[in-house]
């Protein structure tokens, strides 16, 4: 028996996607918000097992929590309603607003955390390969992989340019105008040099038969295993039983 973390990470990309998709969709099928609030917790557990807790928590805190807090602030104060729970001066928190916020944020958290989890447990190269096997053009998957590959390179280059400019006396701290003025000179050389590489890149790819019309092979081995079938079967059972429970019982 393999480690449970390995079990999760070794699943086929589309199995992971189906799993995340079910986590996203079931909150829309179930009434109330309690289940929906369980989804981020469930995702956390899976991230924990897969050894991806740090990034998962980081992205949920940075990406989802601020908007959830803002929704509560905006809606509980300003949602039209009469059931006042607490008030001060012209501001009052209403029951209806709280209820609306709970409903809305539960869905956002469920969908958002499933997406965060999916990208944390799925390697983009695996996903690209799976998409190619499904018949997506290698050019499309190239774009995705190449973009993710360039970002860290470009980041390093940006830091190098900013360091160089600091030594030449370009201010990067101070008033908003100063900071805005730092933006363009830091970015322009980076963008120009990055774009200028595209024609040589085209030559490189053409030399490697990238546009060949033959069916490509790949050293990247990707295969559905027994675990994938088990997980998929469990997902079907779960969704069907939710549907039955919701609409027939």
């Amino acid at each position: 028996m393999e480690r449970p973390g390995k079990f999760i990470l070794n699943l086929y990309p589309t199995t992971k996607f189906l799993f995340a998709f079910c986590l996203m969709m079931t909150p829309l099928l179930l009434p109330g918000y309690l289940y929906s609030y369980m989804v981020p917790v469930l995702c956390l557990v899976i991230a924990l097992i897969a050894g991806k807790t740090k990034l998962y928590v980081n992205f949920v805190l940075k990406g989802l929590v601020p908007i959830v807090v803002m929704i509560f602030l905006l809606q509980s104060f300003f949602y039209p309603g009469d059931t006042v729970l607490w008030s001060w001066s012209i501001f009052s928190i209403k029951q209806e607003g709280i209820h609306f916020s709970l409903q809305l944020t539960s869905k956002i958290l469920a969908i958002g955390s499933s997406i965060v989890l999916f990208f944390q447990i799925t390697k983009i190269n695996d996903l690209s390969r799976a998409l190619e096997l499904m018949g997506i053009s290698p050019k499309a998957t190239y774009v995705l992989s190449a973009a993710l590959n360039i970002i860290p390179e470009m980041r390093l280059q940006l830091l190098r340019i900013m360091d160089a400019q600091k030594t030449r006396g370009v201010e990067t701290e101070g008033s908003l105008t100063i900071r805005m003025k730092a933006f363009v000179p830091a970015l322009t050389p980076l963008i120009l040099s990055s774009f200028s590489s595209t024609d040589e890149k085209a030559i490189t790819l053409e030399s490697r038969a990238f546009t060949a019309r033959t069916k490509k092979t790949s050293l990247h081995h990707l295969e559905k295993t027994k675990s994938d079938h088990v997980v998929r079967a469990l997902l079907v059972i779960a969704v069907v039983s939710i549907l039955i429970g919701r609409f027939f019982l």
Partner: protein
Amino acid sequence: MKNFKKDFTLISILLIPIGVAVNVVAGELVEILKIPLFLNQIGTMIVAMVAGPWVGAVTGGVSKLIFGIFNPTQLAFMPVAMASGIVVGLMAKKGFTKNAWKTAFTGFIVALVAILIATPTTVIVFGGASGTGSDTITAVLLASGKEIWASVFTQKIFVESIDKILSIMVAYMIVRKMSDQYLSKQKYGHLYLNMNQNKHNRKIGA
């Protein structure tokens, strides 16, 4: 559809990952410098200007997909980014990115479209919130008795118009700095040839 495919030459396709990475890195630089704007579609706009609306749209879409890995709420704004690419590309083809004033006007149209798409997304999907500092504007407007749609719409006018017009001006400056030799290899690069006298006399490479 035929036109759509014709725009996607190998060189155009290779612009997409660069445009996406530019968007991401520029977005990060904005955070480092603590500038209260997004400025994360400059790459999309550059690509749309030199490679047309459809390649621009894909650049915007893929950017939001990548942003979505770190912040899934961004995925909801994919249509805004794609529309920005389309609008810039279409306007560029009509010559509306050829000088600074026309480009600013294009930026204004981009902002308008962005406001029209982003407002319903923000109200319906996120209850009017965006999770950024600009939510204060929405809150003040709500407190002053405006209803949610009007508040978010007004907030978007503030945020999007400044953001999009600034972004396209930066994009315009960068395209102007591209060499004629480079531009001549791009699908719609001919629009910007000989715009700059200094470049004109540059030796054409061997």
